[in-house]
């Protein structure tokens, strides 16, 4: 009975996650936190595609989150683009950066890859930091207004936090479906074989470099979308979106939630943000708690929260 339910959920994972996310705001103390979980869940999911499924640890994914945010923000603030063009603009820009950085980084493997992605992302950080007239520099980009939208004659007030949550949820669900399709496709199988044993995949005749690059670009596009939505949510783009510590957050969330699982990234994002939020109200040493929790997971629960739950459910 249990296995049948689990398999059913697995096969309809997009629907299951969507159902959960629809009721999610009721479980959070305030909507802005719920939206942050959506956004960072998406960010972690993009990262997870590369790390959990393809096995490539990048420490520079903040670049794509940030570029997505700035892309959308800049066209809306400086060029008055409407939101339905601004969002794709952010995603495309992030994917382009992903293409360039990926192409440069894929020449290296293993630990070098992590170092190179970190350094290249810091490069992006400095470039955006310096371009003050476009990006606002250290002050960040302000003035991203998305207060009312007209959809099919219906006016939706996006200052209302609940409306905003469900509006952004639509994009998240679309991405969930997209990612699910990728993972279920032959491409999805190939990236997992690359994670397991790169040399053998090459021996089987797969173009490893090209596959990795495609995975990298897809991953950066998803993170770019997360960034795009974040810009709309906060109405500002903070420059530290591009800093390597933000890349570190993606890593922590993916691991906390469960790498290589579909729902893991959201669990990880929720766990991480809740720890930050709740712990901050109790003590100012939230970094100590977050770091210690993270280390505990690395040592004892490498499958992450969701991964461990799944494992336990399947092997009880």
């Amino acid at each position, binding site marked *: 009975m249990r296995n049948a339910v689990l398999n059913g959920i697995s096969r309809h994972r997009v629907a299951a996650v969507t159902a959960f996310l629809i009721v999610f705001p009721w479980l959070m103390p305030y909507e802005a936190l719920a939206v942050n979980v959506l956004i960072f869940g998406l960010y972690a999911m993009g990262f997870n595609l590369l790390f959990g499924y393809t096995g490539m640890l990048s420490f520079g994914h903040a670049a794509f989150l940030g570029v997505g945010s700035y892309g959308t923000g800049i066209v809306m603030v400086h060029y008055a683009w409407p939101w339905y063009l601004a969002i794709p603009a952010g995603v495309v820009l992030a994917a382009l950066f992903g293409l360039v950085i990926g192409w440069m980084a894929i020449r290296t*493997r293993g630990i070098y890859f992590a*170092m190179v992605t970190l350094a290249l992302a810091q490069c992006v950080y*400095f470039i955006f930091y*310096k371009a003050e007239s476009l990006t606002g520099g250290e002050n960040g980009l302000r003035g991203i207004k998305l207060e009312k939208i007209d959809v099919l004659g219906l006016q939706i007030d996006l200052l209302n936090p609940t409306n905003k949550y469900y509006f952004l949820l639509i994009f998240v669900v679309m991405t969930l479906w997209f990612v699910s399709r990728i993972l279920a496709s032959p491409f999805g199988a190939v990236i997992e074989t690359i994670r397991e044993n790169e040399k053998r995949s090459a021996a089987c005749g797969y173009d490893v470099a090209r596959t990795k690059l495609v995975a990298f670009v897809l991953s950066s596009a998803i993170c770019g979308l997360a960034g795009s939505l974040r810009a709309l949510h906060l109405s500002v783009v903070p420059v530290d979106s591009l800093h390597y510590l933000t890349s570190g957050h993606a*890593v922590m969330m993916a691991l906390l939630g469960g790498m290589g699982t579909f729902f893991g990234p959201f669990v990880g994002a929720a766990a991480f943000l809740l720890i930050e939020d709740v712990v901050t109200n109790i003590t100012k040493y939230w970094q100590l708690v977050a770091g*210690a929790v993270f280390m505990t997971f690395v040592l004892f629960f490498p499958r992450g929260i969701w991964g461990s739950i799944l494992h336990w459910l399947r092997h009880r």
Partner: protein
Amino acid sequence: MFDLKLLILQMVTGVALGSVFVLLSIGLSLIFGMLTVVNFAHGAYFMVGAYVGVYALNVTGNFWVSLVVVPLVVGVLGLLTERFLVRPLYGRGIDYPLLLTFGLSYVMMDLTRMIFGSDGQPIGTPPGLRGAVDIGVGNFPLYRLFLIVATAIIVAALWLFIEKTRFGLIIRAGARDPEIVRVLGIDVSKAWLLVFGLGTAIAGLSGILAAPIRAVTPEMGIPVLVESFVVTVVGGMGSLPGAIVAGLLVGIVYSLSSLYVPDFADTSIFVLMALVLLVRPQGLFGRAGLMS
């Protein structure tokens, strides 16, 4: 306007700057070369070294005593870290120790805040090393000259240790091929333990050496970490001569670009790294194939 004196002075400044990088990346490179572990907490050990040093200085009033105390204390911390936190992760994949040390850096920073406060510790230049000397092209701080000399001494001592002692032989062999070393009956785990301790001890020492010229704050390790990664990548991970050459090179590049193209001083070191990677992905002195 080309001022030769200014250029030379700037280059000497770059060498002093580079000295800190050299010490940091030697530690990082040692740990990676021997254990294949990327120590993301390296900047935190640097910071702890500075704090321990300032504390020792306040207690004993003697800077030289702190220079001895710091590597011992931080080295012990490193030993404990390897034994209890990193060792359980061997065999699990190359990423896990990296992730662990990443979390560890957060913990170390906050613990430092808890014990010493978030504000930062004042430390002046030690008496005897204050003031500036005329080095022919201008006034140069005496302390930075000391830094260059101290680094050279430490590097020389390390070289002697690695080239001329039995343990150094094990380190070199282990960096080449850890499996064979184990097959030969040598207790690799003990060697790894000591190397990790040694690497972190050097990081701590560079922290206290750098303290008089930087602000000693809990966050001081963060920018330093990225810089040391860049240096290690440029020099070649696992290579000691690489760490030395790359450290000085990065210091000089940063110093010169601060003079001529100050707007790009920050990005200059990443540009250097990108160039090296495109031309020689394993770094200047790295071994090709030491990649996964």
